[in-house]
């Protein structure tokens, strides 16, 4: 057992840090530090900076533009990005549909779609959940009926994240209804969001944000060429994607950054007062969370080590999802506590506007989005397979119950 990185790994970490110092756009860094909401263009510009460096898709095979890094290097990379408070990588192209296309897509599809995903030239969104199909995704009802060289798609997708920005959507839709198991007859189809018959209706969530949407399909004609892999095998392809989705959800490094930031923010004593960090009750809560996160970090590292020596990420990725999201939500609560009475104002215009100076703000600059962030974060124990579903997976696959 050895916790140390090799010399080569340390050199790699320095390389990543140097890249972040030079190529992480200063204005985006500033927005992140001041909790200002990012726009489509900010995400794209950051991802294109990674692309320029050849680091857009560490998990992809080298032949499609991946980095060929070891598991340790991938870990170092994602940790350094989180500690530098960089924007989340929008997962729909790079982490979700990309792997499905290079694993199951045709040569023509790979050539057509992968370069644009890698370079963040095309924004993708995910057409999975439906109003009646959430945890029980296989009960989805969207129809894709064959008509000559086209599928005619009808149905509704929901909770579609950032569909308002998307150029393309990947869908699970039913191409056959006459099946023995509901997992059969589902196909994985790619659709241009500009197709006639697609309409995007915003869902404004409790934090006041427009992040998710309902996407309606009415007789949308999609070329048969946009079917990925075999007709009716979409469920298998979709499951591969869910594994990719779960792996990133633990967000260990981001939680680490957020806790360290909270420690730093609460260490500052206000004029004529004591620092919150000196309050024993608050300190204890912070310490308890730090310990929980440390345990999670090493669970994550053990998974990583197993993968590095040829093992496959198994059901333990469910542990990472459950504990990772519990920690994220606990951190959100602690931020609200730290903000005190300034967790109460609802001032989205203050974190939506980059050039508002601190004088115009209400309370400390970091406090403005604490409650919206908490409210938004209630989703994390539900999405990507609810934590109850994850527990079912562990009880079946690990405990054999």
């Amino acid at each position, binding site marked *: 057992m050895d916790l140390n990185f090799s010399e080569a790994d340390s050199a790699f970490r320095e390389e990543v840090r140097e890249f972040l110092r030079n190529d992480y756009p200063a204005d985006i860094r500033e927005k992140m530090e001041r909790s200002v909401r990012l726009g489509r263009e900010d995400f794209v510009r950051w991802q294109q900076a990674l692309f320029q460096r050849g680091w857009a898709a560490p998990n992809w095979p080298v032949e499609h533009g991946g980095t060929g890094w070891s598991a340790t290097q991938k870990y170092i990379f994602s940790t350094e990005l989180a500690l530098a408070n960089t924007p989340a990588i929008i997962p729909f192209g790079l982490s979700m549909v990309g792997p499905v296309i290079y694993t199951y897509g045709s040569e023509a599809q790979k050539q057509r779609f992968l370069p644009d995903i890698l370079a963040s030239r095309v924004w993708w969104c995910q057409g999975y959940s439906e109003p*009646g199909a959430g945890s029980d995704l296989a009960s989805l009802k969207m129809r894709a009926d064959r008509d000559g060289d086209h599928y005619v798609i009808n149905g509704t997708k929901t909770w579609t994240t950032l569909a308002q920005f998307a150029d393309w959507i990947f869908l699970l839709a039913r191409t056959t209804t006459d099946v023995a198991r509901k997992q059969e007859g589902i196909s994985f189809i790619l659709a241009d969001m500009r197709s006639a018959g697609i309409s995007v209706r915003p869902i404004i969530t409790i934090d006041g944000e427009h992040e998710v949407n309902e996407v309606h399909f009415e007789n949308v004609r999609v070329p048969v060429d946009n079917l990925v892999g075999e007709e009716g095998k979409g469920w298998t392809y979709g499951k591969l994607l869910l594994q990719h989705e779960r792996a990133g959800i633990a967000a260990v490094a981001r939680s680490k950054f957020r806790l360290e930031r909270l420690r730093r923010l609460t260490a500052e004593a*206000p004029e004529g007062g004591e620092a919150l960090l000196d309050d024993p009750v608050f300190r204890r809560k912070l310490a308890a969370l730090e310990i929980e996160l440390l345990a999670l970090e090493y669970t994550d590292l053990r998974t990583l080590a197993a993968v590095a020596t040829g093992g496959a990420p198994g059901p333990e990725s469910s542990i990472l999802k459950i504990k990772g999201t519990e920690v994220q939500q606990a951190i959100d609560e602690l931020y609200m506590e730290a903000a005190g009475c300034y*967790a*109460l104002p609802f001032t989205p215009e203050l974190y939506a506007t980059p050039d508002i100076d601190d004088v115009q703000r209400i309370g400390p600059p970091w406090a403005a989005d604490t409650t919206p962030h908490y409210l938004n974060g209630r989703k994390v124990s539900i999405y990507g397979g609810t934590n109850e579903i994850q527990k079912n997976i562990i009880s079946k696959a690990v405990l054999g119950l």
Partner: protein
Amino acid sequence: MDFSLNDEQSLLKDSLERFIRSDYDFDTRRAHLRSELGYSQATYERFAEFGWTAVPFTEEDGGFGGGPVELMLLMEQFGRGLVIEPYLASIVMAGGALRHSGSAEQKAQWLPGLIDGSITGALACQEPHGRFNLARVATRAQRHDGDWQLSGHKAVVLNARDASVIIVPARTAGEITDRDGISLFALKQGTKGVSLRSYPTVDGLQAADLMLDGVHVGADAMIGKEGHGLAILERAIDDATLAVCAEAVGIMAVLVDKTVEYSKSRKQFGLPIGAFQALQHRMVEMFMEHEQTRSLLYMAAMKLAAGA
């Protein structure tokens, strides 16, 4: 020991329940939330017609002499409806300070309006670094030709924008966290030197940060005795704490009901999701937490009533 309500309390509870159920639907509430005022003045005046705004005040002051139990009944129902009208800020907080310790003149000046709903009040009990310590008052009041001059910063003052009277604690003596030396002042809206930064709150109310820059008030604006304001503040905040607890219990009761109801209609894997044991247990936890919190609420109301 007796946990039952008397006849008057039962009547109050029934009328509140009926109103919230039939006249306070969510869509109307939402429309009022989006209006410039952020709530409905007409609805608030109906509160007054029902006598709810008069509940905590003595009969002498034009009220009904209700106590913590009545306040609890009101606020629980307001929680059930997610009421956005400024009852807490105006009646419980500002009204509390005035009815406990206002002079006859101050009561005559403000209470009739608060009770008939034509005006509202606010209590500026927090400062930016106060962290819920009521005694931490950095705002200063200095004598100035027989008057007082106030300077300081008050944080997240509920209903400050719309209040006709804002009760402001300021330090007339002592150091920043001393329990003694805090005095309360009744400030009229629009007094020179007061500036407001108002904003909505995450729960749909209105609040403001209050900057006081050499604000002149007359000696007659002081509520209670000089330097003894903290006790008044604490009494008002005790009532307000009970009120917020009751509101929370009302919200919890609705959440338990709505969650259970939804779990019976939402189907996944061919079953209502309420059929899954993992979710049943979570809902049982919700139910138990709600009952436990309700127990604490009743205890708090009865203790407050016994002490008053």
